[in-house]
Structures are given as C-alpha cells and as structure tokens.
C-alpha cells in the first residue's frame, strides 16, 4: 500500500497506525499522529485502519525556542 508519511512516499504493509509506527521503529508516547489532517488519539492507534494514499504526519518535539 502506498502512503505519504511526513512528505515521503513509502510502501507499507501496515494496516493500522500502530503497525505503521512499529514498521518505522518509532516509539509511541512522544509522538503525535495525524492522518489526512485529523489527529489520531493514542488509544486509537491499534484500531485506526490506514488506506491507500493516506497522508500521514508523525511529529515529535525538537529543539526550538524562538526559531524561525
């Protein structure tokens, strides 16, 4: 299945958000996930089903105070 994750087109076998995070080796807990502009709650990672062409954003915190 083709997905766009953080702007990158990838091939994924993940059926759910949780599977996608596992596939990408991203530790849950310090990230937030958005699919097609909707935030997916942490409790829903296991049940939220991804589909072909979904645009996924996975964000976390980085250094930045008064950055451009």
């Amino acid at each position, binding site marked *: 299945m083709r997905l766009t*994750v*953080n*702007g*990158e087109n*990838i091939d994924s076998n993940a059926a759910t958000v949780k599977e996608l995070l596992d596939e*990408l*080796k*991203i530790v849950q807990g*310090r*990230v*937030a*996930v*958005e699919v097609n*502009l909707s*935030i997916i*709650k*942490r409790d829903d990672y296991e049940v939220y089903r991804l589909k072909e062409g979904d645009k996924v*954003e*996975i*964000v*976390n*915190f*980085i*250094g*930045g*105070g*008064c*950055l*451009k």
Partner: protein
Amino acid sequence: MEDKLIIKGIEFKSRLWVGTGKYRDLEETKKAIEASGADVVTVAVRRVNIIDRKSENLLDYIDPKKYKILPNTAGCYNVEDALRYSRLAREAGISDMIKLEVIGDEKTLFPDVIGLLNATEILAKEGFLVFPYTNDDPIMAKRLIDAGAVAVMPLAAPIGSGLGIRNPYNIKIILETVKAPVIVDAGVGTASDVAVAMELGCDAVLLNTAIAGAKDPIAMASAMKHAVIAGRLAYKAGRIPKKLYAAASSPIEGML
C-alpha cells in the same frame, strides 16, 4: 515569605524560562539548561525523521519529569497552522500549555497580532493554557487576556536580536494593564537585559538565543539564572527614586 510564580495552579520553580534551539548539540542543550536553573523549557513540534531513525530525541536529554515542557508554534505564519501545531503538541505532550506564536513576517518575526488573537480565543475555548508571544502593546495584551490567554509574553525586541528591552515604558504599562502574569519573551541579549525586565516587575523571562548563541553558553546560562534572581529581588526590595542631584550618604554633623 516565598516568592513563587503560580499560573493556573501550576507552580514554577524558576522565573527563567528557556528555549532549546540553536545549540551545538543535545549535550550542550542539556548542560546549559541545567546551569540556567530553568523549570520551563520550550520546544518546537516537527516531523519525525522517518529515514534516519538513529537521530536523537530531545526528550532523552530534557527529562519531562524534571522540566515543564512548553511546546511552541514557532514557524507558524497563519492561524490554521498555529492551531494544527498546538493540537499536535497537546497530543504528543503531557500538558495543555502552549506558547502560541503566529508570526507575521520573516524578516522581523514580529507577531501577527490579529491572527494571534483569533488563535488564542479558539485554543482557550479548547482548554489550552495559552501563552501568546505578542508585541509590547498594552492594548493587545489586554485583548489577549480577555480572549482567554493565561499570561502574556511581550517581546523585548525582535527574536534573536539581542537588543534588550527596547520599550520599558510599554512593558511597565502592560504590567499595570493586565491582571495576569507578564513574561518577557525574545530579544534579550545579556544578563543586564534580564535584570531590567525583572526590575520592571515582570513575572518571568523566556530566552533562547542569548544563551545558545553566547561564546560560552553554559556560563551565560548561569549568568542569566543569577540575573533573574537579582532583578526579582531588586523589584521586591523597591528601588530608590532617580534624582538629578546628589544626596550625601554621610552625615554633615560631627564634621570638623
């Protein structure tokens, strides 16, 4: 009596708040923040690097159990983006606090206060504790508090400029106008700038570049820590009025 900053029931151990950008590496970030004695650490929200999973995580260095993490919307130039980043930050984080930035212009990084006001109103209704980065404008400060902000964060000078407090009179008026904490955010260059902000009566100072960009960030972090404490003490102690002429400190009586 203890002089603690408390906002919406949250107790802050230090009146110095710091950013985490522009450091050489995460180790230096960690050491400088430790030396600053800061309690609040502001962080940006960005995409996880999905290609290089070995890249280090900021929160491995800045322990959220030890520090209050204040996510910001740095880099957002419109209300829609600021709301999106705020909501993502809340989902990724551990608190409802958001340092709200709606930037108006790349060259000055001054806030777009109309967008800021709109975003503040929406986020406050969603239960966020909104800390808006705003101009040194007393009327806007009041409007932001009326819209539901829990504090205001007027700039001292443009972000990263190091110019210090360019308009202390406006900051003073803001302090008299709003019945909420005033935290000077952005533009301070060195310890004396921080002391001035605190002597004016500000509740805290947030800074980043002044420490991260110093030749020795860790030493500067320590200087800032002391400046905040000294400035606050001087404010509480009550300074003498300024006078044009001398006033002798030794008695005339008993002179030969």
